[in-house]
């Protein structure tokens, strides 16, 4: 399959303060590169402040990067005129985390579903049929067309959000924590729906989540982010090489009391993106930290085919150490 999305050296900084306070620079996304093949599901996982939502918005060019390029289907987005960019947007859509705030409360479901056509200046053949077929596609009854958001459950609202994203037949759908505000039983429905739609419509997903368990279940390839940088790129079935990914995995609560472990030893919390340490950003929490880590920023290096980690002391490189690490953890 061909590459649908190529991201190269993407960075975004936000500056703060200025007039009365000292200007501070926040590094939201730093030097991110990856490719997403047509038809693939790429997961982006990390904790709050790791830059995953900023990355989503950069990829869709809802915000401009400080550095780096995003190529969509071979076209560098920075080279496009406003009009061309708007037309390109038909092919890339975003599904938001919070379906409650993503839909205007004064719009009926019908209005919300027709909004993309209005914005893009595309006229659907028959509005009633379009609305009915979009609702049908996401498993909602067409009688809901006249409902307003407050009359819908969270799951129904998220289905409307997905239907709206699919209205203009996009190739790429960026899903920003699409199930984080839903109940588990509803989350499973939405994940099944996304899987079905991907197969039926040949969609490509960039799936953003804080839930490594869900990402490992749903995605082909996973990017793990920490403080704006990719720390690991791995096939979803692989054992983690970066200690941070290992810690994330050890922090997820497996629904099996037989596999109980003393939960985690990862101390501390994520430092602020304002003053990043010179070396590895994870150094202050890492069980394998050495002086090298505090001084030199590790770069992504290949661990196995399709598997890269940005770590001076990766877990799988030295098997004995990896085993010891696991028994400690």
């Amino acid at each position, binding site marked *: 399959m061909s590459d649908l999305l190529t991201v190269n050296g993407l960075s975004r900084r936000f500056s703060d303060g200025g007039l009365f306070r000292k200007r501070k620079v926040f590094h939201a996304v730093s030097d991110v590169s990856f490719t997403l093949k047509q038809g693939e599901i790429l997961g982006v996982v990390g904790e709050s402040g790791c830059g995953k939502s900023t990355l989503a918005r950069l990829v869709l060019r809802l915000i401009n990067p400080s550095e780096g390029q995003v190529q969509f289907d071979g076209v560098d987005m920075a080279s496009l005129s406003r009009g061309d960019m708007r037309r390109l947007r038909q092919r890339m859509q975003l599904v938001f985390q919070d379906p409650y705030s993503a839909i205007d409360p004064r719009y009926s479901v019908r209005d919300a579903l027709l909004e993309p056509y209005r914005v893009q200046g595309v006229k659907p053949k028959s509005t009633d049929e379009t609305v009915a077929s979009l609702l049908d596609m996401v498993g909602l009854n067409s009688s809901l067309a006249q409902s307003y958001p407050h009359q819908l459950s969270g799951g*129904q609202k998220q289905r409307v959000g997905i239907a709206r994203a699919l209205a203009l037949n996009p190739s790429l759908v960026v899903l920003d924590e699409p199930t984080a505000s839903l109940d588990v039983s509803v989350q499973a429905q939405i994940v099944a729906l996304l899987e079905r739609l991907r197969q039926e419509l040949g969609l490509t997903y960039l799936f953003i989540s*804080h839930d490594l368990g869900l990402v*490992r279940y749903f995605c082909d390839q996973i990017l793990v982010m920490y403080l704006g940088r990719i720390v690991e790129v791995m096939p979803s079935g692989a054992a983690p090489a970066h200690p941070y990914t290992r810690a994330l995995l050890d922090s997820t609560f*497996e629904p099996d009391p037989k596999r109980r472990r003393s939960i*985690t030893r990862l101390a501390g919390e994520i430092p602020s993106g304002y003053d990043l340490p010179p070396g590895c950003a994870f150094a202050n929490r890492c069980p394998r930290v050495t002086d090298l880590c505090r001084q030199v920023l590790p770069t992504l290096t290949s661990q196995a085919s399709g598997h890269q980690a940005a770590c001076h002391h990766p877990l799988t490189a030295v098997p004995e150490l990896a085993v010891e690490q696991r028994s400690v953890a």
Partner: protein
Amino acid sequence: MLLDLEMLRIRFGAFSPVDQVTLSVDRGQILGIVGESGSGKSLTATAIMGLLPRIGGQVAAGTIRFDGTDLVGLPEREMRRLRGGRIALITQNPMTSLDSMMRIGPQIDQAARLHLGLSRSAARARSLELMADLRIPDPASVYDLFPHQLSGGMKQRIVIAMALAGDPELLIADEPTTALDVTVQAQIVQILVDLARQRGLGLILITHDMGVVAQACDRVAVMYCGRVVELAEVDALFEHPRHPYTQALIRCIPRHDMARGTMSAIPGIVPSAAAQPPGCRFNPRCARVADRCRVEIPELRVGASGNGVACHVAEAA
């Protein structure tokens, strides 16, 4: 038993969003109450804390026995002595418990001064000790900070320290980690588990996360639409879930060893309190529904083992 709820019914006007809730927790034991939104798990906690009247509700039937005393109908004065003292609550959002205008330390001191009658300096010493126990770095400086100067995980630790300051015997943690990052969530759950084990606290852990239940709890009450549908030891619950809702809930958690597309979902949605179906409340979503389920509400029958299930089909099996 430290706490024993029997056939609790909570009423708000014409609605009974919680009914026939039976569960118990002993000292040193961790009981998980698990359910989706609208299952009544937080209302149950509110009832135990005696705070229902503040939100316009009341206990309409049943008993809440704490260390032998029925809390239902206990005068507010006596309830106030227990609340924050022998019974403490930790909520999902630490800022509901913290006063943003007040320094951290004195907020922790309050419970010890009020419930244990400690002097200002004794309370301070105790607070610093609790903060150190909860692995809050540099307690003496954190003591003088304001809440906004702390991260979410640190605030939740402060709230736990506040809950412990009154020397509670029963601790109710209502979704204590939902607002936190995964790695921090694991730290907080570990702290709560250690507290129950080391101090012999009875801990009620309210959560929607079956993973937290599996990793932390001894016993579990599964709630659906205001009722306990299954009560069991944690191992039994995951190995042989009896209620179709419990079975479905366990199956819809993603696990890495599942192939994509094999995770099953529960069809339909949780009905609102005003639109409860007749009969078993799970029947419209249940894969094993029988005619009887549509008319007759199954009762939770708790056996001598303390385990039970409220399901016509599971009981027949």
